[in-house]
């Protein structure tokens, strides 16, 4: 009898759940491989640093097998906020099983969405990721403080966005992955800070050349977590 139940359970598993694809993608801002906690002091360049804000858009997440698109997430734009752990976990539920060996996504909001008027949910301007004096989404926000930064109260503010040529800051990221139900993507903030020249460029809050450079820096610190 027990055997029959086990066999039935296996059959059920095969026909029901096993047909569907469920992948969790976690975006995890890290400092020295540890998840960042806001307003906590981290040792940095013989001094210390605190991070108060990390918020960004991840868009158009899709799965590829040998450069062929096999699946994409229905929801296009996700606002990831370090203060809201639920926002860091993005679920993909597909109708059928897929084989994939890379994941593609963009950091930011594409230009078409930027010119399409008021939107709701993660794209609602109420989320504070939309500029008011000039139209456009802020793709990535990083704020914090360190004595290495000569600004008022030693605060650095990077609000990176811009959707119009020649300052379109949307970045594409492609990461090779092994098929896994739980994909971890790390954002190495120490590595990003090393590239930012905190002592010289510490307030970037509009589209332009500086934002373009920083957008590229940001995309370079996304990697597959361990």
């Amino acid at each position, binding site marked *: 009898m027990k055997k029959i139940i086990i066999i039935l359970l296996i059959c059920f598993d095969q026909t029901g759940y096993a047909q569907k694809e469920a992948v969790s993608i976690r975006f995890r801002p890290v400092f020295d491989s540890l998840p960042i906690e806001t307003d906590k002091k981290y040792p940095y360049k013989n001094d210390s640093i605190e991070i108060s804000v990390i918020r960004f858009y991840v868009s158009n997440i899709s799965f590829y097998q040998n450069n062929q698109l096999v699946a994409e997430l229905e929801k296009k734009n996700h606002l990831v906020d370090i203060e809201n752990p639920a926002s860091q976990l993005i679920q993909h539920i597909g109708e059928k099983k897929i084989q994939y060996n890379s994941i593609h996504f963009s950091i930011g909001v594409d230009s078409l969405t*930027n*010119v*399409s*008027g*008021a*939107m*709701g949910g993660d794209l*609602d*301007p*109420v*989320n*504070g990721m*939309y500029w*008011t*004096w*000039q*139209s*456009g989404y802020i793709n990535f926000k990083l704020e914090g403080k360190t004595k290495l930064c000569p600004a008022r109260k030693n605060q650095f503010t990077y609000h990176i966005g811009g959707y*119009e040529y020649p*300052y379109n800051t949307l970045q594409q990221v492609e990461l090779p992955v092994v098929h896994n139900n739980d994909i971890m993507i790390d954002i190495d903030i120490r590595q990003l800070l090393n590239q930012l020249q905190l002592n010289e460029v510490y307030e970037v809050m509009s*589209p*332009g050349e500086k934002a373009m450079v920083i957008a590229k820096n940001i995309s370079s610190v996304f990697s597959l977590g361990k």
Partner: protein
Amino acid sequence: MKTKVTILSLTVLVAMLSFTVEHYGLSWPGYFPKPAYDFSKNPPDSAKIQLGRNLFYSPVLSLNSTISCASCHSPYNAFAHTDHSLSHGIHDQVGNRNAPALFNLAWQKKFMWDGAVNHLDMQPLAALSHPKEMGESLPSVVKKLNQSAFYRSLFYQAFGDSVATGEKVLKALAQFQLTLISANAKYDQVRQGKTAFTEQEERGYAIFSKYCNSCHKEPMFTDYSFANNGLPADSTLKDYGRWIITQQREDSLHFKVPSLRNLSYTFPYMHDGRFKKLQQVIDHYTEGIQDYKVVSKKLRKPILLSEEEKIDLLSFLLTLNDKEFIYNPKFNYPGKK
């Protein structure tokens, strides 16, 4: 027989001229171009328009509840701000620019004098958040609206859900503004064959067509471009217009070409309101341009007009005033409930 054919073809012609476009309950003359606004993404609906109208006239949008949109966009001035060259906001702070008139906004692609805003839905964010205008923030406005029984009821009627969100606030405001269609000036009645220009207006129309129509293009009386019209930069404001937005040097001192419709109601003129009278505006284009090398291409040939021709031009321009639009009760203060 011939007369019959003539009468018939004349009737057809008049019918064609007075053809009206109906779109989501809004209407405009058949000779208007296709609107830039995508109505399918925010289909106008009377409850949403009423919510937007209430928000437009409500000081709840400003930090200290003293300023509404209508404070600087008054219906009696075709929704512009009269008497002040530069508009003022909360705590009597004076801003950098002259609040523009609001009408026929469905045809406009870029907003603000420098085109900083790319969509009608998003335009209120600029005034709402500017420290010298309303000094507020969208999250705080949404919070205040969610605490108001009056607004919760309006949101429920409009969206079937009483909870206010940023998206709903912006879409409702856009809907009210989309209804502000001005298309019944004497110019329109002439185009629709209902009346005729006087001889003086005819002469003015000919001058307009020769010198002004390239930028202030019929029938909207703007081509929605940005131009340097030869005004020297104000040394106190240091406002370089579209250059600030595009960061392209060739856009220096470029400002939005405004529509000339309703121009009698919208004084003072120019982005900084430096001219109080229409006569001064005409004088600027005929005698005021100092450096023809920097102005936009279409203005590089001097415009030479006699004093009589200037008066003729002015008499045509006055046919662009739409009194019905100014006094339309649907656009007025909705009254407190």
